């Protein structure tokens, strides 16, 4: 469909010098492939929608064209299990969600599972990601994750952490304390830069993202307070496509069972996050 004109790309990340885990060894599982709806099976490709600006889960390689990240590796592995070629296509959030079920078969883009979202989509849990605060190296302002009231904290718009901060802030004001000043940025990199620059004391993000950011800013940032309340993230499938949801669930489960999923995360330096059961629409 979209030719060279978009940043979509087939699973060719292994050619890139960028980090990735080679999933070419994952074989097709016929039983699971049989669960696929006919339309998808006949097509032969699994089109995966992802908002590729969230390192290290899904982002762009140096050529700005190739999607890479652990979600991308997972997508390819799922494709292999289902006997399909996985094709990761980029999409902004607003154009991603409505198109799952038509333009995209599934969405794998660090979507946190929440009850509201489950009302509007099928979600298959695959990873349990905590939240972390990152501060300037040495924590010069002595930021304490346990007393966040009155602090200026950066966060990426639309993340689970943004909601959390809003709740914390409400708690602060309810307790007669100062509210948190939340700076909500469209991109994680803006949040990161503003901590480096000193506008915000800390940023609050997925632990995976925070760790990766800290490692990429040449030691200018550090994680403080460790990994906090973890939340599950899920693969999104159209609400009305139970068949595909079940097939993807089975495929994900098989990757968990044979250890591939854990190896992918290891390759990206994200440990302890893998779930061992891929649950369809878990009660979060």
């Amino acid at each position, binding site marked *: 469909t979209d030719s060279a004109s978009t940043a979509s790309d087939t699973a060719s990340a292994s050619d890139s010098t960028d980090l990735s885990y080679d999933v070419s060894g994952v074989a097709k599982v016929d039983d699971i492939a049989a669960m696929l709806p006919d339309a998808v099976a006949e097509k032969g490709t699994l089109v995966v929608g992802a908002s590729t600006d969230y390192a290290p889960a899904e982002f762009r390689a140096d050529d700005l064209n190739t999607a890479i990240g652990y979600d991308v590796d997972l997508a390819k592995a799922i494709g292999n299990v289902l006997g399909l070629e996985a094709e990761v296509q980029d999409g902004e959030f607003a154009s991603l969600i409505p198109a799952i079920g038509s333009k995209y078969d599934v969405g794998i883009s660090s979507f946190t599972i929440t009850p509201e979202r489950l009302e509007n989509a099928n979600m298959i849990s695959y990873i349990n990601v905590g939240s972390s605060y990152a501060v300037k190296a040495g924590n010069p302002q002595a930021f304490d994750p346990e007393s966040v009231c009155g602090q200026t904290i950066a966060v990426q718009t639309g993340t689970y952490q943004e909601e959390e901060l809003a709740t914390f802030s409400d708690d602060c004001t309810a307790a007669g304390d100062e509210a948190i000043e939340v*700076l909500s940025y469209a991109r994680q990199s803006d949040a990161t830069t503003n901590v480096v620059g000193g506008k915000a004391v800390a940023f609050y993000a997925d632990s995976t993202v925070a760790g990766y950011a800290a490692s990429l800013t040449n030691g200018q940032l550090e994680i403080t307070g460790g990994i906090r309340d973890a939340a599950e993230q899920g693969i999104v499938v159209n609400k009305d496509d139970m068949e595909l949801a079940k097939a993807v669930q089975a495929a994900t489960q098989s990757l968990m069972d044979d250890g591939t999923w854990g190896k992918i995360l290891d390759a990206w330096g994200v440990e302890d996050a893998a779930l061992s059961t891929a649950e369809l629409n878990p009660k979060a």
Partner: protein
Amino acid sequence: MSTRPPELIRARPVPRPSLWVAAAIVLVLVAMLVHGLLTNENYRWDVVGQYLFDPRVLSGVGWTLILTVAAMLLGIIMAVLTAVMRMGTNPVLRGVAWVYIWFFRGTPVYTQLVFWGLIGVLYPRLSLGIPFGPEFFVFNTYDVINATVAAILGLGLNEGAYLSEIVRSGLNSVDKGQWEASTALGMKRSTTLRRIIIPQAMRVIVPPTGNETISMLKTTSLVLAVPFSLELQFVTNAIGNKEFLPLPLLIVAGIWYLFITSILMVGQARLEAYYGKGFDDESPSKPAKGMSKRQQAILAAGTVKADPNLEVTP
């Protein structure tokens, strides 16, 4: 002399079948479009209805309006200032005005807003004093330029660059004879501007400014770059994000924008009628209702030449 004509001509108009064909085609297309809009379940009209009057959305509408008005006010001030500077004889001030317009028109407003948001990082302290000399007041930048101020500064200064040309063209549109008459009477440049030129230039300046306001309404959504996160588009995006329903919430925002724009367009049409009637055709037509005697007089005199009711991009 007869006062009323005996019998007005009442003739059948020329039949125009093409008109009816066109009408039929258009109606069918509109019907299809509306049908498609209502039945395509992607739009989730139930969700649209549910969120249209959500308090968060309403507060977003409010903030959008506040930003629009404040930024336009700042823009107008900058515009008048720089337009007068550019028309003046002082080459330094002319240069400054030119650079201002060049820079703010030349760079994306989004980028400008990012910088205004970061101003506290880039220049942590603002000081009032003699350059390279003693400082009298020193502020912590973030105390002065909070997100709201940054958003308004960013939008307003950008807008000022665009409005400046509108104001200049308005001032230029006033008949040169008006300048000469006041000069010949011994009036100073500043007096002439204030008392003679600007009152007449308003006719040309006000309508496109209405237009710019309509544009500004939608430009406000870029303040997420600051970040300022209370205006309409941000709020609806956030809700859509949270609920996995971006499309219906885009529609919610779209409806509000369309609604406010429609009101502004009515206002603009009124303004154009107020300032512009009687110019398009040279016949002495009836002045717009409610027009002041003064405005009617400017109009009828026709000393303002252009009628550049140009519309302007968002």
